[in-house]
Each structure stands twice: as C-alpha cells, then as structure tokens.
C-alpha cells in the first residue's frame, strides 16, 4: 500500500477514530499509521476540534407558544371529517362549505393594474403590529358637527403642531378624538363611551384564538350540510366562472346555490388589485408579490361574515398566514395561481379587529391588514361618520377607528406607515374613507356594500 493510499484510507475513518467508535482492530491500524504520519496526526487534531465544536452546539429552547400552536393546528385537523385526499385538502375540508359560499359570492372582477411603490414616510416606527397596543383610544363625545365644514376628511399633515382638537386632551399624544353623531344621541344625555369594541389592540390574540376556536364552531355549523371534500381540493375554476359552476365544483346543494346567487350581487363584489413589476424598492428586498385580493361579505342564515380570497401570479406554492408573533399561524397553503386561497368567514373571524394577513409565494410576500367592525355591524354602514381629530395617529389607528365606528370593512395593503394629523368632519363614512385614503396615498376600491380595498396609489 502506497503512502498516499494509506493516508487516504486512514483519513476516511479518522473521524470515527477521533470519536472512539472504531472497533479495536481498525483502531490499532489507525494508531500504527498515525505514529508515523505527521499529516494524518494534524488531520486528526483538526477533526477532533470539529467534532468538539459540533457537540458544543446546544439545543435551542422551544418557543413557549409553539406547542399550543401545534396542538391547536392538530385539533383543527382532528375535528375535520376524515377521508382520503391530499393532506392539505383534508385540513381545508372543515371550512369547505363556508369557503364554497364565499366563492359563490365573488362574481365581479375588475383587475386594476398598478405599479407598487414603497411609501417611505416618517412614522414607520409606529408601524408596530396592527394588533399591538397603540395607546390611542378614541373617546367618544357628543359634539355637534361643525356647521359648514366639509364632510369627510380634512387633512392637516403639513401642520407642524396641530391645534388642540376642541380643547380636548390627547392632541399631542397622537390620539384621536371622535365624535359620532351616528353613534350617540345628540342631546348629550349619553356619557362619553369608550368604544371597547373599537380597540384594535389585544384583539390580535383574541382574534386568532377566536379563529382557532371558531374553526371548530364553523365545522359544527356547517356539519349539517357537509360539503364533499372536493370543495377545496378540486382545481379551482377560472376567476370569471359562473356562480353556478362554482357551486357545482364546491359541491353545494342545488337548493342553496340559487339562494347564494341571489344574495351575492347584493352583498358582495370583488376588485382585484394587480401589482405590476415593482420599482426599485431596496437593495435586498425583492419586489412585493403580485396578489389579487378580494374581500366580500357572505350572508348565511341572516348573519353576515367576511371572506377573503387571494390569488398570486406566482405558480409556486402560496402560503397565507394570519396574525403575528406568537399568534401567527399558517392558514392556507396551495398553488399560487391555479387555486385561489379563500379564507372563510370563520377563519377571518368576527370584528372588530385589525388583523395581519400575509401572503407569501416564491420568496416574495405581500401583507394586508383587515379592519372590521363588530360582527353585528357587518354590512351595515353608519349614516354618518364620527367627528375625529388626530394629531399624528398611525394610519392603522385611523382606519381601525373608521371601520369600528362606521361599519366599513377595510382591507388595506401594507405598508401603512404614514401618520396623520387631521380632522374628520361628520359626513358619509365613504367620504371619510376617501379623505383618509387620499392623505395616506392609498387608492380606494369599492368591493361591495361597506367593503373597501385600499391599495397603494400610483
């Protein structure tokens, strides 16, 4: 055996030798070689160091929230009807019926191509998650609307130090002061109300928990009319396919399909926002994922709920997550452009809340925040928007207030990193939203009655 060959052979088992797991015969052979080979001894030293370094890598502690998160996910699957089919299809089955109804509801489609530009405006620091406490709680007082003031939004962003709004505290803290003719009696007999239901803060966790628990409720509710599994696992029909075809593919009964068809035009619509190739946003950041997002209301048994639907132009797997931080969870996976991902009403949950929804595919992502009013107000738009004055409130705060107090459902595309200094006079909720959006640089796209999609304006 030549010297090189002996070294090569020795080298192959050197790590085992260093670890002490070689059988005695092989071990003796290695030691004989090592005694006369300086190079292999150096190799042994190096390998020993490497093995020691590998074993010094300690396991990382498990995040506390992970086990409950996994257990919740498993419970959802446990509650799902069993049957053959693809793994994800089985997971999706529990909400098949609700999803099918949601799919029925989307009948309009109006893609609006636009190019996405990242809004770089001070206030990004305020962009703590939508469900984090913002410290800005609206206080409702019953002040009559200023006579002669323009209904809607009166932005005052240029004002370096905004005037104190109606002499009420909170102007410097960026809080909003809302006065809602629509929400309280005009005679002032009602004391100021803290709209608990209007708080976006801390609702993220609640919301997610609701969604998690709600999934099983949804199954219970829909269990009476079980939908075949192909409701979601079947290839999705083209976007412009008829409602009837959708109901067929979703396995709905013939009786329920016409009913949904009837109600759909009244309560839902959809607008697709196509994000074109992005501008140069950053060096490392890839362009945002082009996503077609739709939001609609689903009416069933006299109750309204929200359904969302996302389609990506990427053919890769698309993942939709909901919530953030420890409450973040994957809600759907599926092909990006062949089968739109539909979030059922139960998954989206009932408001009021501001919930982060992230769509990821092919290494790119796009995020939205869904602002919703209370469940009871879904589909019911207030006759008049509240009076509000904001002194540097975050966009999320303003949109959240608007949704909670007027009944609007708003799906806003991130980033929402602008801040507001401005006043909203009583007017229609839509005019208020348009004013807000104009100031935010967002484009308002109506999706149906009281439903709006906000996308970045060109």
């Amino acid at each position, binding site marked *: 055996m030549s010297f090189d060959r002996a070294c090569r052979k020795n080298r*192959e088992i050197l790590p085992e030798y260093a670890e002490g797991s070689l059988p005695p015969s092989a071990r003796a052979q290695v030691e004989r070689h090592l005694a006369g080979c300086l190079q292999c001894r150096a190799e042994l030293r190096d390998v020993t160091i490497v093995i020691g370094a590998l074993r010094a890598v*300690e396991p990382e502690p498990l995040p506390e929230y992970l086990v409950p998160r996994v257990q919740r996910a498993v419970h959802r699957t446990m509650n799902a009807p069993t049957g053959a089919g693809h793994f994800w299809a089985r997971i999706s089955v529990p909400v098949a019926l609700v999803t099918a109804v949601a799919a029925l509801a989307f009948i309009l489609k109006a893609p609006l191509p636009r190019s996405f530009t990242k809004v770089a405006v001070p206030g990004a620091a305020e962009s703590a998650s939508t469900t984090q406490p913002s410290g800005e709680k609206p206080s409702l007082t019953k002040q009559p609307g200023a006579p002669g003031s323009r209904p809607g939004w009166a932005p005052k962003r240029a004002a370096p130090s905004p005037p104190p709004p109606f002499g009420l505290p909170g102007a410097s803290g960026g809080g909003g002061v809302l006065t809602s003719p629509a929400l309280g009696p005009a005679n002032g007999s009602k004391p100021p109300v803290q709209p608990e239901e209007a708080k976006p803060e801390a609702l993220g966790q609640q919301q997610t928990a609701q969604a998690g628990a709600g999934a099983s409720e949804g199954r219970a509710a829909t269990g009476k009319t079980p939908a075949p599994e192909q409701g979601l696992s079947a290839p999705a029909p083209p976007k412009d396919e008829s409602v009837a075809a959708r109901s067929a593919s979703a396995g709905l009964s013939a009786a329920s399909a016409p009913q949904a068809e009837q109600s759909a035009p009244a309560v839902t619509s959809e607008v697709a926002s196509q994000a074109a190739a992005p501008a140069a946003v950053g060096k490392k950041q890839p362009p945002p994922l082009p996503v077609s997002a739709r939001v609609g209301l689903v009416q069933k048994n006299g109750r309204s709920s929200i359904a969302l639907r996302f389609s990506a132009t990427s053919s890769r797997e698309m993942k939709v997550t909901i919530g953030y931080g420890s409450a973040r969870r994957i809600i759907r996976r599926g092909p990006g452009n062949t089968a739109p991902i539909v979030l059922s009403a139960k998954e989206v949950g009932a408001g009021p809340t501001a919930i982060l929804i992230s769509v990821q595919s092919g290494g790119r992502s796009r995020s939205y925040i869904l602002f919703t009013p209370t469940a009871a107000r879904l589909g019911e738009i207030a006759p008049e928007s509240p009076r509000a004055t904001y002194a540097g409130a975050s966009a999320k705060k303003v949109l959240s207030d608007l949704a909670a107090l007027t009944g609007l459902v708003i799906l806003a595309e991130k980033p929402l990193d602008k801040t507001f200094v401005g006043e909203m006079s009583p007017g229609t909720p839509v005019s208020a939203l348009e004013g807000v959006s104009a100031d935010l640089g967002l484009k308002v796209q109506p999706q149906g009655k009281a439903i709006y999609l906000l996308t970045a304006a060109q």
Partner: protein
Amino acid sequence: MFRHIPTFGEAQYNTLVTGPAKDRPIQLTQADLAHIGALVARAQKGDREAFDSLVELYAPQVYNLALRVTGSREEAEDCVQDAFLRAFCALRSFRGEAAFSTWLYRVALNVATDAARKRARNPISASELASDDADEPPPDLERVADKAPTGDHGPEVVFLAKQRRLTVLKAIRQLPEHQRAVVILYDLQGLSYEEIAQILRTRVGTVKSRLNRARLALRDLLAADLELLHG
C-alpha cells in the same frame, strides 16, 4: 508538505478522542417506552390528549432538528407544525416497526429538508419578508446563536462561544443535504447510528461513511476557523 503542529505531539492524539456522542435527548426507561407506546396507541384511536402529550414530548427535538436543517427559526416553527400535522394524518399507518420517535424524526426531516430546499431556491426568504410584516425580528442565525444558553461566563467567553456556534452552524448549512442530515442527527441531536439508519432508511455503514465524509468536509470548510473553534 507537512505542517508543523507544535501543540500536538505523538503522545497527545490518544487523549483527543472525544468519547461517545452527546447525551441522548431523552433517556428513556422501559416504563417511558411503554408509556409512549400507550400514548401512540391512544392517539391512533383519535385521543386528542394523547397526541397533545406526544407533541409536548417531541416538539423540542423536532424543533431543533428543523432549526438546524433550515437555519431559520420561523421556518423551523412552521416545520414543527407541518411535521406534527403530517404525523397525525399518517398516524394510522404507523405500525410500530420502528420507534415512534424514529418515525417522527423521519417525517420531520422530510418536512425540514423540503423547507430548506425552498429556502435555498429563494435566498431572500419568505421568513425574512414576513419579519417586516409581523414586526418580528428576522430569525437569522445570529439570533439563534444569541438564544443559546450562555451560563455564568464573562462577556468574552460568551462572545467566543457565540462566534463558534455561528461558525459551526454556517458550515453545517454548506454541507450537501445527505451529509448535513447525518451530522445534525448524530452530533447535534445525539441519535445513534442505528436510529439514523432507520430514519434515513439506509444501512448503518452508509450512515458512518456519510458522517465521516461530512466531518471531513466540515474540517475543510472550517479550516480557517480551527483556532477559534479550538479556543
């Protein structure tokens, strides 16, 4: 050309033998095994609590396996969820031919490997993007290393230990897939050759051979950092 190794004489190489692999993650007694077997049997019949117990029991190992394979904490969390969901869905097909942990490790490794492949195809990963949206710090290796236990050491020791971990983890990520899996399972997770062979559905000899090659490859990858690692 031979290198001069001043700190390593002939008499020393025997003392460098590192001994057996690190402690097993779970030292199981017969009673433990029986308990786990009972849990699996109950879970197979749809017992939610039993599967919850299995999740609690094995989540740390599955998480660390996924973390080392993917290199991303967020990705690892998703992998844990996926792995247990897949395990749950396939639980009826588990017939006890191998230990439940082995079977679960196989599922988890497949999930994590798939995730790592996707991550490799998309260098700027979804998790990094999501970090902006979710207001979470990016789950990169640096943070992973930061979270490792430090003990009561001075800042320099902690810093060096962190540098060593980072260096090693980075090198592991550069290994070919099959070598990386063996190194993670054996050196980081502390599994035996036999268990790894069962997980990878291969022979023990193949596992040993891959492990040796992986360590030699690591030695080459870490050639410039050996002094740091030797510390």
